[in-house]
């Protein structure tokens, strides 16, 4: 699956982009931007997960379920076991969300279109209800998360950022490897014609289930990293339906052409939000919404389609 993965153009571009982001943000850009990159990259993982589903024509309106589950897994492991190691945090978030996704996948893999979207929304709101009611989980106040460590040493924000970038590269490269495998190629095939795929001898439900679990893992990891980089989790900003909506929105805004697209989209989203908040504290939501609308109107293929046009990037890949 991973053979020749580093010869893949997308992977190369991704690695170069991530490393240059690290270098530029450490040396040239002001410190605060690193926060936005950190949030953008973390959230980008969840967007990558949604993009995977989208390739099979499945839109989940409940991905905040895994996003929040990962974040709360990190928070609870700190509260009850004192775990603050970033490697453990990331692993716990991914595994916890993956397990939940595996269980729910048995139900969800049978549904398509609006039924899939609404059912996933329902599941996420169940978790939201539980978290908002349970006082020992902090109810709507949530919980604060102490700064991350690595092998017992406290991490500075700078190193946390590097590590997040590292996790993101690993995750994105694995996803590219998955997309290049037979299972990955099935995704678009399922989108085109499910019955044909079945006749080719593949189980559509199984393929979707696997994809769903991968997507859940990514969203969980995103939540875990977000929790670690923000230092706070609460149901309203991690699990509520509008968080799911936001994730879907960024997915559409980013476009689905490439594994790099979600990260660029998510970073741009963070910057739009930061500046909107600064310029118009009373009308920031309208600015964010307006920008997203404009992108959808004028660039239906998302931000990635702009990049493709500018760099002529996608065409080259097609020729190959």
């Amino acid at each position, binding site marked *: 699956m991973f053979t020749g993965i580093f010869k893949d153009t997308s992977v190369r571009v991704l690695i170069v982009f991530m490393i240059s982001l690290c*270098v530029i943000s450490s*040396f*040239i850009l*002001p*410190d*605060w*931007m690193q*926060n936005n990159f950190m*949030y953008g990259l973390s959230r980008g993982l969840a967007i990558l997960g949604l993009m995977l589903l989208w390739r099979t024509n499945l839109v989940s309106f409940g991905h905040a379920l895994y996003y929040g589950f990962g974040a709360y897994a990190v928070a609870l492991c700190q509260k009850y076991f004192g775990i603050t190691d970033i490697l453990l945090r990331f692993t716990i978030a991914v595994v916890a969300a993956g397990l939940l996704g595996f269980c729910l996948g048995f139900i969800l893999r049978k549904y398509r279109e609006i039924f899939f979207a609404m059912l996933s929304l329902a599941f996420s709101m169940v978790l939201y209800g539980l978290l*908002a*009611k349970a*006082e020992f989980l902090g*109810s*709507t*106040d*949530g919980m*604060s998360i*102490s*700064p991350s460590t690595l092998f017992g040493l406290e991490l500075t924000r700078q190193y946390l950022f590097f590590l997040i970038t590292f996790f993101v590269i690993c995750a994105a490269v694995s996803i590219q490897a998955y997309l290049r495998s037979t299972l990955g190629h099935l995704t678009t095939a399922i989108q085109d014609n499910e019955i044909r795929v079945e006749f080719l001898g593949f189980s559509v439900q199984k393929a979707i289930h696997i994809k769903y679990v991968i997507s859940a893992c990514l969203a969980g990891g995103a939540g875990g990293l977000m929790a670690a980089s*923000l*230092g*706070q*989790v*609460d149901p*309203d*900003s*991690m699990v509520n339906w509008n968080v799911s909506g936001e994730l879907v929105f960024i997915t559409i805004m980013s476009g689905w052409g490439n594994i790099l697209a979600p990260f660029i989209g998510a970073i741009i989203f963070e910057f739009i939000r*930061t500046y909107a*908040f*600064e310029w118009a*504290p*009373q009308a*920031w*939501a309208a600015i964010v919404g307006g920008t997203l609308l404009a992108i959808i109107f004028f660039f239906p293929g998302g931000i990635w389609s702009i990049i493709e046009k500018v760099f002529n990037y996608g065409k080259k890949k097609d020729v190959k």
Partner: protein
Amino acid sequence: MKIKIFNKTTKVASASMLVASCLLAGTAFAKDTVKVGVVSFLTGPAAGVFGVPAKQGAQIVIDAINNGTMPAPYNKQGFAGAKMNPIFSDESGGGTKQVGLFRDFVEKQKVDAMIGYISSGNCMAIGPIADELKMLTVFSTCGTPRLYEEKLRSHVFRTQANAVGDSLAAARYITDMYPNEKNYTGINQNYAWGQDSYKFFELGMKQMSPDSKGSDKPQFPKLFVGQYGTEISALSLDKAKVVHSSFWDGDIEAFTLQAMVRGFFQKKIFVSSVGGSAVDALDKKFPDGIVMGTRGNVGLLARDDKSPLNVWFIKEYKKRFNALPLGPSYQYARSILAYKFAMDKAMAKAGSFPTQDQVIAAMKNIKFKSFTETISMARGGGHQAVHSVGYGLTKYNKKGKTPGAEKVKMYGPECIYPPAGTKSEDWINAGMPGAKCN
């Protein structure tokens, strides 16, 4: 090849760092302005009755101090001589989002201090981050006692007393005014503020009126729900006559309107610990005879207070915004006063423009004159204010056409707060030793 690029990057980096350090040095020495983030709800259900009046209260005091037009003892212009440049920001969106914004304020906007925060949930989220980023933060309104009882904070101050006093004063008022009512219940929002408020009301009632009994069905709807049909039915069926509520924001308005049409307030003694702002918002529509608090001697209960600062504040507020100042207006204005007081004190001590550490040292344990009383930062290691808390019965003033209150009783801080260093819950359960109530 690689080495070449590295060299180039180092050059660019060192050049830009040089520029940046020059810029930074420039801002650090020329202190004719202090940049302060002022955070309150500017959108959502809590904006109208809480966030916006809070911002307006802060604006009046900031402008007056910047121009040197504030009455004594704040008549000296500026904050340690510097003008305040406030950046108003929105508090909505939950704790996690606010933490992100707080980091932006510190690292991007490079503020000198942060003032504000209404929601207890946000304060609990911001507290640890403020200490981590070493940013002087003055909380204005939020009331959860957990903020300092869980951990002392190095960079966080709060100029508003916590929920313990609000709830205990409510329990005192009930036992003083309605000694025969033994059954009580409550409707509170299901988060730190609501949970704590009801918990301390219940603990207080148990101590002050030992044969009283709390309902086994107190209601805890979610914050900002706005629909209380089922809860009102449940409370109406409950035999408990006293109903405690710490609703604030749009929720108290919504609840009042929905309960009123069902004759709820005729059947029950409704105790609202923060509803004062809704009284003004609903004006003459607000029912009379509700036990109303404003979390201190402010807002509705301070309308007739003749202290010069209070008279000035009400007059200025009316002139500029054509409205009366509400509780949150006072609370935010008070935080600004505390900040000025500490800045001036630190400057007098240091002899030059004070550093943040000097301001923090100066702010500890201060007693500063607020609008209606002198407030001392006597708890939470000198970081937490205590002040008196009062309750009264709402009574619309038909002559003046303004909402008002009658039978107001103020309870001093020694009556309703535990002594420094004692946990509220332990103190109440021990029978509130040393409490001095007049």
